[in-house]
């Protein structure tokens, strides 16, 4: 066993105790480490020395700090964001309402909140819009010229990047869906009508 006859040994024990403790160590607890044969003042002095030793350590990863319930080692604050990667939150899922709101903005852009509400038949949760804006998936591209001048929302480049798309045209088209609902002639007619409206640019020439 280690002899407790010098401050170096005591500092080593304190350091080990602080690095292995899951919660801050109070002075009382640390005194117990030395079977109470150490003065509180000495203990404080040793802790300060350890603190300085670590501050002087280059390069360094940890710092000794005093918090309400005692002393603890903690990772330097600038490292914390990296360390947080080790236990990330579980990825969330968007609610059905949020997904539908996003889908409307994607497929009918630019749209106002009113457009979305009309299509969904229910009020839009302002949080959903805010969430999508904060993620930089949608933004305001203008105002519609009607009373109240509501904002027009559209998807951003970030949205395309995040879905690994080059353009919205890469999104699955709704055509297949039309076939599901109108199984035969009607579907073809509708499709033709839609196609007639817009030129097909499935294969744009390389620039």
């Amino acid at each position: 066993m280690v002899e407790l006859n010098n401050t170096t040994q005591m500092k080593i024990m304190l350091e080990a105790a602080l690095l292995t403790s899951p919660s801050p160590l109070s002075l009382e607890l640390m005194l117990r480490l030395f079977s109470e044969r150490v003065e509180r003042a000495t203990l404080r002095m040793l802790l300060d020395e350890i603190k300085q030793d670590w501050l002087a350590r280059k390069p360094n990863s940890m710092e000794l700090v005093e918090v309400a319930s005692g002393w603890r080692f903690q990772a330097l604050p600038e490292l914390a964001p990296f360390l947080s990667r080790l236990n990330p939150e579980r990825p969330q899922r968007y609610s059905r309402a949020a997904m539908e709101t996003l889908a409307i903005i994607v497929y009918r852009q630019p749209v106002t909140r009113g457009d979305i509400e009309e299509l969904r038949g229910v009020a839009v949760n302002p949080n959903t819009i805010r969430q999508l804006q904060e993620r930089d998936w949608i933004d305001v591209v203008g105002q519609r010229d009607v009373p109240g001048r509501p904002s027009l929302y559209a998807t951003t480049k970030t949205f395309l990047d995040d879905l690994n798309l080059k353009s919205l045209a890469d999104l699955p088209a709704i055509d297949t869906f039309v076939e599901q609902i109108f199984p035969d002639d009607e579907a073809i007619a509708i499709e033709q009508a839609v196609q007639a409206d817009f030129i097909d640019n499935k294969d744009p020439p390389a620039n």
Partner: protein
Amino acid sequence: MTTLVTELKAHTEPRLHGEAITSLPHDLYIPPDALEVYLEAFEGPLDLLLYLIRKHNLDILDIPMAELTRQYMGYVEKMQAIKLELAADYLLMSAMLIEIKSRMLLPKPDEVESEDDPRAELVRRLMEYEAIKSAAQKLDELPQVGLDLMVANAYFEQVIQVQAPQISMEDLLSAWQNVLKRASHFAHHKVGKSELSVREHMSQILRQLKEHNMMEFSALFDVENEGIPKLVVCFLAILELAREGLVKLTQQAAFTPIYLQINQSN
């Protein structure tokens, strides 16, 4: 680390009223409370048998069954007398011992060789159990986290990194289909790939107009870099923007430049 060692000693050298009991009384009279102490020291009939074998210096490879059985039965009878719960396992072993003993008394038929020793199975079990006993002891002597080893567990400020939900194109399409399914004016809302790129261009043009306030019509077309389909899509987007009243198209006179600006009538 020595805990189990001492514990084991305590087990194999049962104590009564603080004093180690090193040998059984010859008449096998054990006060009932002492017997309990004894029995609790054993982990079962195999443990008791091993104890007896060691204690009486019996050869485990040539166990004198009569002696061992007698010793063992002495314990079991006492156990029954005080109705110990453990008795069932011990009784099973009694039966086995008696069976082995009686088989050994039978005259051996000539054709059966000596390797068919009725004690073989018992010896195998005793040896296997003793191996496990020693393994248990060795395991217990290994350093353990929390007792003999302290692992680092310092603190860091957890930065909550809320993972944004992941969506797939399929999620998006099925959400859109749900919307369309419920929407009353179904036919109005069909979207093909081509219309989608028109709508994308509408957003892009609006973005540009937001930035520049007013733009010349021709400035919206990148004739040099875009293929014809894209230019057409861009044109369709301008028409659609105008139709929806989102942009205002102005021209001072015929053949003068056409200007686009965001519709801000008020």
